[in-house]
């Protein structure tokens, strides 16, 4: 039962961290901040040029010359790639699998459902859910079923300190918004997988900790791309979310992890909304605050939903049915 005992439950100095989606946005910020805390970093993404640039930037933040920094180019939507990456990372890491695997890879394509090209439904699920599920599968297999010749050493390692598997979901995992139909289900699936694995990890004597980060809007290159397809209606519904920089999200995530949290919201709004859908998810500490908040939120959500529905209806009256603002000449 994770307590807030003041002890850092996510020490990374001299540990090796594998970060997918580590060449830009949140992944890059996470990589740099963990480098500054003494970790060895291996980043994974598709674009080789971006990876090289990112690797340079990350290594500049290093705490000590002993740290190593690597990058691997891969398309994580291909199931077998995750296994290859874990093997490569293991060779780089002196024959041991990485201590920490943090999945930041993902993308957003927020369009009104009926306007969404059908192929995007699958692209979103691949990009956001399967890249993480495949990586989790490869990492957990490496941690929980070490190859026989290494077993004694690995067992020694595994008993020594916990390993961490971190997913990056989204506020939209528990609070859906009109216009995110291609995206929210993928993030809800991630949360669900994390919860299931959290239950499953109790089965294994190896100490594996699971975490999921829940950010809201992050100001990154991808966010700008997202906004080019996003409906104006969705932009309006999102108005209440101030947004954070990637560095801020990374900072808050790491802080939550150090406190031993399993579900890590990065803004207060995310925490509140999370408490509205806690279900059987592991609460932080004794769960008192989360539970109290859940009572409040349960009441508040009725009004939030009613308000959101009202906004959509009013939009329809003013702007019609496309989700896009009427152009002046119409």
């Amino acid at each position: 039962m994770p307590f807030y005992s003041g002890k850092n439950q996510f020490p990374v100095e001299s540990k090796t961290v594998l970060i997918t989606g580590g060449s830009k946005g949140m992944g890059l910020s996470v990589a740099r901040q963990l480098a500054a805390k003494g970790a060895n970093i291996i980043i994974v993404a598709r674009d080789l040029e971006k990876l090289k640039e990112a690797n340079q930037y990350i290594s500049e933040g290093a705490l000590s010359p002993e740290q190593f920094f690597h990058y691997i180019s891969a398309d994580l939507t291909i199931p077998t790639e995750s296994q290859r990456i874990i093997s490569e990372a293991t060779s780089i890491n002196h024959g041991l699998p990485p201590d920490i695997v943090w999945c930041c890879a993902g993308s957003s394509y927020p369009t009104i459902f009926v306007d969404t090209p059908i192929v995007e439904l699958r692209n979103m699920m691949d990009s956001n859910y399967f890249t993480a599920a495949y990586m989790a599968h490869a990492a957990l297999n490496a941690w929980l079923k070490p190859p026989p010749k290494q077993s004694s050493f690995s067992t020694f390692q595994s008993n020594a300190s916990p390993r961490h598997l971190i997913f990056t979901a989204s506020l939209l995992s528990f609070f859906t918004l009109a216009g995110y139909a291609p995206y929210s289900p993928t993030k809800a699936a991630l949360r669900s997988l994390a919860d299931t694995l959290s239950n499953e990890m109790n089965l294994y004597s190896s100490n594996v900790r699971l975490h999921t980060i829940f950010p809201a809007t992050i100001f990154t290159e991808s966010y700008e791309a997202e906004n080019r397809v996003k409906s104006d209606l969705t932009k309006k519904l999102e108005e209440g979310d101030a947004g954070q920089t990637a560095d801020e999200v990374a900072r808050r995530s790491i802080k939550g992890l150090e406190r031993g949290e399993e579900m890590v919201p990065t803004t207060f709004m995310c925490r509140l909304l999370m408490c509205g859908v806690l279900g059987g998810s592991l609460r932080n500490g004794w769960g008192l605050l989360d539970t109290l908040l859940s009572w409040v939120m349960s009441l508040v959500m009725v009004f939030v939903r009613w308000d959101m529905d009202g906004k959509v209806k009013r939009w329809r009256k003013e702007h019609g049915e496309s989700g896009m603002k009427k152009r002046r000449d119409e």
Partner: protein
Amino acid sequence: MGGFASKNRFPVDGRTVVITGGSQGMGRSVARLLATKGANVLIVARGIPNLEETVEGLSKVAIRPSQRFHYISADLTSPTEAARVLSEATRWNSNQPPDIVWCCAGIAVPGLFIETEIDTHRDQMDSNYFSSAYIAHSTLRNWLSLPFSTSKAKEPRHLIFTSSVIAFYPLIGYSPYTPSKSALRALSDTLSQELQLYSKGDSVKVHTIFPATIFSAAHERENLTKPAITKKLEESDGGQTPDEVAIASVRGLERGEEMVTTSGLLGYAMKVGMLGASKRNGWGVVDTIASWIVSVVLMVVRRDMDGTVRKWGLENGSQVGQKT
């Protein structure tokens, strides 16, 4: 509001219903139940023998000679098949799109995450999420593009997904399955908001059914791969027959509910533990108060479940994947 009104919010007499996964299990029970309520029913699945058998059975329980029954064989995990099914169904229905589309197609293949092949994870997502998402896409595009004058129904059209209580309470051993069902819930919630956007949105309703264990042929197959620890944790969930699930689902739909649980108090409790911004029943008073109680209870339940799993792991060794 669905509170005290006794109006049936899901009339099916004389209307046309498309049911995916309609040739076995819950889908078949739903098809038969709606046939006894006067609906024309078109069932979709892959295997033709089961489809033929089911359609024959439907005509036997029909209440009017004018009712029509039909089947289409399709693999709904393919995006183009959904569009084909919709257009064939429309042609069959005298060039009117169906009034109700109910997605029951799906399958559960439980297993411990690391013991389960990657392909199984993909297959579950295809079978449970994409088959429904593709149908929903074709259906809604069809319904929402109709010029108002030809949409004869003043009664709303209904799009119904079938998720599972596991979406409210993930359990060890269901990692290939639960995410697909949670994804469905999120899609349904998003559509529920989006449908307000369309003036005919008042005439399209979306619902999701959350059954618990259903004693069907598929359930027996499911039990073949289910880890022993999962069976242990599920002990408290009795289970229902597909007919019971169909009856409870339709009852919830007739009451106008958006999120329908079928398994009594347990299913209801699990739902209110995870309500969030989902539409509550009526004014939401009962749901909200219930959620407070459940919020406390779930903490204890979770701790207890984790304890059971930990103990199991210690007793059975950490290389557990043991199937009974």
